[in-house]
């Protein structure tokens, strides 16, 4: 049974994301000496030369993997291990220092937080967020009601016509997730989005992720919640200090990871 499945699967194993020895380096201005004094800044300017005074943070070091259509891949690792950075690089949002990422279509990061404005009503934010993700006005009109219903914002009164700053943090998070999850993606990347909202909403969003995964070619999920990784992913990449420590089926990698974290 399993072999048959595997055989069937091999035929349409189309790669969707290929990372080839990827390195990402952040540059931080004026953090070299740890002092931000004016004289330090001045000497920095006077000395000139190759990016003196700029501290480099090597966040991802030589990561290579191939992701295939139909896979849901979890990314785990301790804080600061480069998970989010890796996602951004796959999405083409952070330029690579060395190496390359090849993708099929445009990978998108699930998250429109940055495009939304607290001073605008939920209604306008739905439209703005949709446009920011590249949806057309017609698509948004079509899905508007679905987004509002999914978020459950209007369950306790007409909140969608109020500015977002009046929402509780849970409500705002729910609306953000609903907007972000409204679009279909070729390659979808989710950065700890499941941890938002109450238990009921979490269940609903996990379901939505599974739906998205069916529609999307490939799903990447960053999470510190091993349970949600186990529930949604079938392959796991374990990053530690920017390096790929392990890459394999969920159960095996999580077992090693749990041993490592001492759980």
């Amino acid at each position: 049974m399993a072999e048959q499945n595997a055989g069937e699967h091999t035929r349409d194993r189309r790669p969707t994301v290929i990372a080839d020895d990827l390195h990402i380096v952040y540059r931080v201005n004026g953090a070299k000496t740890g002092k931000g004094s004016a004289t330090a800044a001045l000497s920095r300017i006077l000395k000139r030369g190759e990016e003196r005074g700029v501290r480099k943070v090597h966040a991802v070091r030589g990561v290579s993997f191939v992701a295939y259509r139909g896979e849901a891949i979890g990314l785990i690792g301790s804080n600061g291990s480069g998970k989010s950075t890796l996602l951004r690089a796959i999405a083409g949002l952070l330029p690579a220092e060395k190496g390359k990422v090849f993708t099929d279509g445009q990978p998108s990061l699930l998250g429109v937080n940055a495009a939304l404005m607290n001073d605008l009503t939920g209604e306008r934010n739905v439209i703005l967020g949709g446009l920011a993700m590249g949806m057309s006005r017609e698509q948004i009109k079509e899905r508007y009601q679905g987004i509002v219903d999914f978020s459950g914002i209007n369950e306790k009164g007409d909140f969608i016509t109020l500015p977002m700053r009046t929402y509780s943090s849970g409500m705002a998070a729910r609306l953000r997730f609903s907007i972000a999850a409204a679009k279909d993606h070729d390659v979808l990347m989710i950065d700890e989005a499941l941890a938002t909202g109450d238990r009921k909403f979490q269940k609903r969003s996990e379901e939505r992720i599974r739906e998205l995964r069916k529609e999307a070619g490939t799903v990447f999920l960053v999470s510190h919640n091993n349970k949600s990784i186990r529930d949604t992913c079938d392959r796991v990449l374990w990053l530690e200090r920017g390096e790929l420590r392990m890459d394999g089926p969920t159960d095996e990698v999580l077992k090693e990871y749990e041993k490592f974290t001492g759980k």
Partner: protein
Amino acid sequence: MYPKTKVSPVSETTHDGTVAVTAAPAPDEGLTPAELAARYGLSVSGARPSLGEYVRQLWSRRHFVLAFSQAKLTAQYSQAKLGQLWQVATPLLNAAVYYFIFGLILKASRGMSHDVYIPFLVTGVFVFTFTQSSVMSGVRAISGNLGLVRALHFPRAALPVSFSLQQLQQLLFSMIVLFVVAIGFGSYPGVSWLLIVPVLALQFLFNTGLAMIVARLGAKTPDLAQLMPFLLRTWMYASGVMFSISTMLQGRPEWITRVLQFNPAAVYMDLMRFALIDGYGSSNLPPHVWAVALFWAVAAFAGGFVYFWKAEERYGRG
């Protein structure tokens, strides 16, 4: 460092029935990543599109550009009690302050009649503010929106364009005040008022180009945002916002006057005054003024656009 363990992937069926990662020997085995990518038609993520493709992408995001600018504009006054009324009240108060200082205290009118000077001053202030605030928001267009740049995919030029568009809408509110001031001082609507449209269009193009240039500079060197107000203030005083350049420089060599008059801010201000104010005739305009206005608009916009696009793949780092 950590040992890198590679678990040999096995095929298995997980509890929800989906097939887990499989790595049955495929014909792809042994290909380099680049060859594999080429074989399946994958493209490099985050590569800069060609100029034509970039224009097409930007055009397809026009609704976002417009919605973003309107949202920014609305968000600006959403906490105030008077709300959107401030869109008109702010320029009105600005005009009043400048009138008080330059009209009543400093008497900078220099030979212009009261009826000409007040609209002259107010037009100058509003038109220059349009360029000034476009540049100021342009400097921060990328560096102030890193969250957006790092989260979503869209042609980055959408940001400076959107901010200039926001300033244009702001100026349209100011124009209401300007019309009231002009009519109040005896300049009534006439055919020449139609010239306002091309002047605004040209100035908008110029501002957007400038915003894109400073957006790229500001993305690399955020310090520019600190320096910019001083440069802009110098530019304002050199552009004849509160005085007529030709009257002020009487007796000096003509080329100095011409250089100052051909500076883009002065050109757009003078054209707007010429369109709006009855007592401000064409004798106040330098020769070939429309050609110069067109030149500045096209040069700044085309140059700024290409300059901005050249660094497209690098925005968002650091």
